[in-house]
């Protein structure tokens, strides 16, 4: 199968206090159309940096990023990107936040609302369109942020720890909600998390990054059948994989940062 996204030899160096610091070592990824792919790794290993590069917000120091075979280095607007914070504009209603991407592209408001409304009704935001972000719970705000990303209508969606700030209960609800959306839209999803359970529960493939500076140390495919259920998270195979991932992460977490002067 042809790769939807291909990341070839991408690395990133930053210069700080006159020193060059490597944030991410050479990384190669190849992700197939419609997969749900998670990236886990200790904090500071360069996961967000990788996403910023894929989203075209910062250039890589080396390497190429291809989407559908096209070079997208430095090109914004090619993928949908959602950050950990919901980043809703507080002075806009939920509806106006959700259609922001379309508004920027110049879609007439009426058409944008007509497209947003059914999605809001279907995915748990019915009746919240006129509210302001401050009036909603964290989970609801993340729903709005994700719908905004979804309505931006790209084939590829990057989610950077989207549920990291939610409590365990809400997080579980949101995970199921996300899977439901993913099953309906079949986008290619790249999902960053530091929660091992979350990665296993959601993903087709898991890439494990080493500690700073990040480097892929393992790729694992999860064969658990879908749709997945809460009970699956206590099955023997789930536990086994979790133990394996814990092992990988604690082994790779102590590497010191490399410096080159």
């Amino acid at each position: 199968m042809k790769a939807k996204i291909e990341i070839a030899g991408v690395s990133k160096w930053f210069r700080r206090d006159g020193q060059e610091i490597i944030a991410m070592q050479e990384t190669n990824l190849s992700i197939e159309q419609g997969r749900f792919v998670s990236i886990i790794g200790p904090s500071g290993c360069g996961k967000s940096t990788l996403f910023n590069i894929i989203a075209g917000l910062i250039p890589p120091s080396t390497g190429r990023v291809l989407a559908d075979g096209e070079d997208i280095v430095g090109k914004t607007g090619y993928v949908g990107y959602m950050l950990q914070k919901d980043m809703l504009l507080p002075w806009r209603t939920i509806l106006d936040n959700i259609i922001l991407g379309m508004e920027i592209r110049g879609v007439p408001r009426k058409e944008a609302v007509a497209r947003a409304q059914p999605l809001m009704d279907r995915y748990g935001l019915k009746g919240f369109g006129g509210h302001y972000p401050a009036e909603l719970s964290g989970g609801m705000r993340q729903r709005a942020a994700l719908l905004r990303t979804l309505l931006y209508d790209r084939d590829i969606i990057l989610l950077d720890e989207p549920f990291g700030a939610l409590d365990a209960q809400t997080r579980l609800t949101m995970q199921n909600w996300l899977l439901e959306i993913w099953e309906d839209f079949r986008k290619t999803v790249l999902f960053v998390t530091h929660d091992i359970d979350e990665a296993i529960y959601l993903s087709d493939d898991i890439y494990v990054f080493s500690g700073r500076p990040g480097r892929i140390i393992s790729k694992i495919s999860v064969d658990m059948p879908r749709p997945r259920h809460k009970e699956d998270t206590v099955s023997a195979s789930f536990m086994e994989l979790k133990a394996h991932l814990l092992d990988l992460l604690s082994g790779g977490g102590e590497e010191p940062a490399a410096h080159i002067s």
Partner: protein
Amino acid sequence: MESVQKKGYVIHKLEPAPIHSVKPEKMQKEPVIVDEEGARRRTQRIVGIGRLTVGLLIVLCWELFTRIGWMDSYYWSSPVRILSTTWTQVTQGTLLEDIAYTSSSTILGFIGGTLIGSLLGLSFWWSRRFAGISEPFLILLNAMPKLALAPVLVILLGIGFFSKVALAFAMTVVVAALSAHSGVQSVDKDMEKLMYSLGAKRHQVFTKVVIPWAMPWMISSLRINIALSLAGAIVGEFIASSHGIGRMVIYAGTILDINLVWVGVVVLSVLSMVMYAGVVLLEKWLSKGYGMKKA
């Protein structure tokens, strides 16, 4: 249900609540709901009445003490005399024109200074180099006592209306620019990142994120600026003018008509309060326009 001993944990049996330890007649039937709203309203009313009483008391004492000679009525005038002098100034003098003169130079300077200052502050978002070069000069200008410049401005621009507007403008423009600049600096970088990831151009980030984000900062400078603007206009009239309340006060001082000085002070206080109230309304309107807008 009995307690259950599992391999690694125990599930405890829950005891039923011991209701019989409280006698039924002692148990409360109605839930207690504290009427916080009513209490707040009562507090507000008492505060209102209290303010009115204190205000009246001050005026009354002022009148009384000047009459019985505890306060020298030559220096302190008295509320009744101030009122009657005000009335003669309105009917026979030029008090109304003076009020119009002073308030229009104040308001023009305020509007001009706020608009241009805010635009300057906002423009710093476009270029970090431009902002970096300008910042120390802005801080310097802010620290400089601009009222000391008044004679220069009057000599430069003449003793007419325009020099008063220019002084009011000079008083407000720097504060407005610094406020807008703080607003711009506080814009969440991730918010900009999100906008770019949605394919936004720079001007779209500016209009859709930066301006609304900096709005509360710009609004917060309005209240200070209206007072500064009035001070600028009055000092301009002190220096040299043929109209305005400031000129009236200076004139009254030179002919030792302390009564008339008091009229000026009272009129200026009222004017200042009215303009302050106007700015509060403007603030409300602006906050609403940006808080509830559906665009």
